[in-house]
């Protein structure tokens, strides 16, 4: 089980790094990249499950999951980037904090 634990810890560390990046960088692109790192952690762990001691065969399920997950993450990232671009177009910067065109808020 030690291999599994190593993978588990690695994935948690990757997840945490991603999270740290998400919360510490104000720039939106960096935030999105950080999210992908978080996702990377999760995928890494999943793919590590494909070969485990229970049976000699390689379990196809984790691979299917990771493939699906990557597709989902790609589309989500694309959507997030799209929104970021709109924000950049409108405010001229890639930040979440300012919204100058709404004086009443």
């Amino acid at each position, binding site marked *: 089980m030690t291999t599994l634990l190593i993978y588990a810890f690695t994935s948690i560390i990757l997840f*945490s790094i991603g*999270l740290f990046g*998400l*919360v*510490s960088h*104000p720039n939106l692109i960096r935030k999105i990249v950080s999210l992908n790192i978080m996702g990377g952690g999760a995928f890494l762990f999943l793919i590590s499950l494909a070969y485990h001691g229970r049976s000699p065969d390689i379990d196809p399920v984790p691979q299917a999951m990771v493939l699906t997950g990557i597709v989902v993450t790609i589309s989500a990232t694309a959507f997030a980037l799209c929104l970021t671009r709109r924000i950049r177009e409108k405010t001229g910067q890639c930040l979440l904090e300012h919204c100058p065109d709404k004086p009443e808020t």
Partner: protein
Amino acid sequence: MGRGLMALAPLPALFLAIKEDPSPGIELGDFLLKSSLGFGPFGSTFLLITSLTWFISGLYWTLGPQNNAKSRSFCVFFLLTMCGNIGLVAARDAISFYTFFAVMTFCAFSLIVHTGKDLARRAGRIYLIMAVVGEGLLIAGVMMAVFFSPSHYFTDIAPALARLPETHFVFLTLFAGFGIKAGLLLLHFWLPLAHPVAPTPASAVLSAAMIKAGLLGWMNFFPVGIASFGSWGSVFAVLGLGGAFFGVMAGLSEKDPKVILAYSSISQMGLMAFCFGLGIIDESLWIMAAPAMYLLIFNHALSKSALFLGTALARSDRAWPRKDVLIIIMLAVPALALAGAPFTGGAQAKLLLKEAAVSGPLNETFLFFLTISSVFTTLLMTHFMKQVISIKKKSESSLGQAMVWLMLIITILTLPLISHLLYQENRITWTDSGLLFSSAWPVIAGLIIYLFLRRQVERMSAMFRQILPDAALIMDKLWYHSNARIRQHGFLESSWGQMNFARFSERLLQRESTQRISRELELRLSAWSVFGIFFMLLIIIFSLFALWGM
């Protein structure tokens, strides 16, 4: 038309009172809390005197000159008050009695303030305060009395109360509650203010009839003639005698004849209270005291209304020729009757009273004081006559009114003759010279004292008045003061006193600082770093808790 009816209204009651056999009364099952009307144990006497007085006063008013714009409201309240007074006499149960008593009390207020002058207003205010306090005491007393009895009929109440310990609260409330109405010493101070300020017929009924309601109340509720309550009897007797002297002492320094008459009422009611006290001290004495009391009541009611009406007549300036002398002479008749001069009902009453007093405890002392009180009454009456003579004339009266008054005087004169019709066993023959003398000398003494020592007597009275505190003034001040205190008390008007919790909580929620802090906190919560910390922290805590739970 209405005015005519006003005079005729008491006639049915009068007719009932004169009719030989007392009617069986009626039970009004649906009315109030099961009312019973009829003649109570003391009914016919009181009914007679009440209806007679009201009849005369009503007639007097009706025949008078009608130039008063407010006369309609006077009529209404006069009749309402009469309804209360006659009703309470006819009541045979506590609740109807109390009801009529209250009706009388509150309607009489409007008679007192009828003239609308400042003096009347003040008198009315003090009357009302005292009356309300009295009503309050009474309702408590009546409730307790009814509670201790099998029913609310008087026939049950008095025997039931007789079984109570003497110190019981119910006696105190009833004593004080009716005492206020009866003008008992210490509770009397509204009376000299209120009685004189009313229009004359109203003053007459106030002093002659309504004041007796208090006495009737005592007689109905206290187990007089059934049980002996030495201490309560003494209280009645002592306060009664005290009142008899006080009324005179205080009245002697007054100038207004009507005020003097009011003080005289206090004095006379004192005698009646004394008489009642005798009956309470010892149940056996009541047999003797009761006739004395009835005669006192008769005498006082008739004389007092005659005096009030006479005063008004003396005050008027045009009616018939040479009236002044006539009026003064005739006015002397009720005055003498009140003082107890021989051949009058007053003398008869006092003799009977003395007889009763002699057979009771402390007989010598009581006898002495009673005799002295006659002297005092004469003094006051003389003083009254003097003030009437020097009266200023300002009002009008009609011949009809004078005729009514004349009839009243005649009735007073005939009272000693018909008194044996009412109470046969107490016939007094004026041929006995000792009797004649004993009733004549106090009157003569009083006359002499007044003639020679008038100034000293008046000065003494003034001094006496100065010694005693003016309770009415205190009452007045107390009312204003407490009103102002309650109205302007800081606590009650403050936001705490108003106890509007909604305002508190709203202030708490909407306060600037609360809002600022919470907004700031909300802003902090939405910071990315805070989010990250919470995110990690909660994952770890949940995981650890889950591990711990396993």
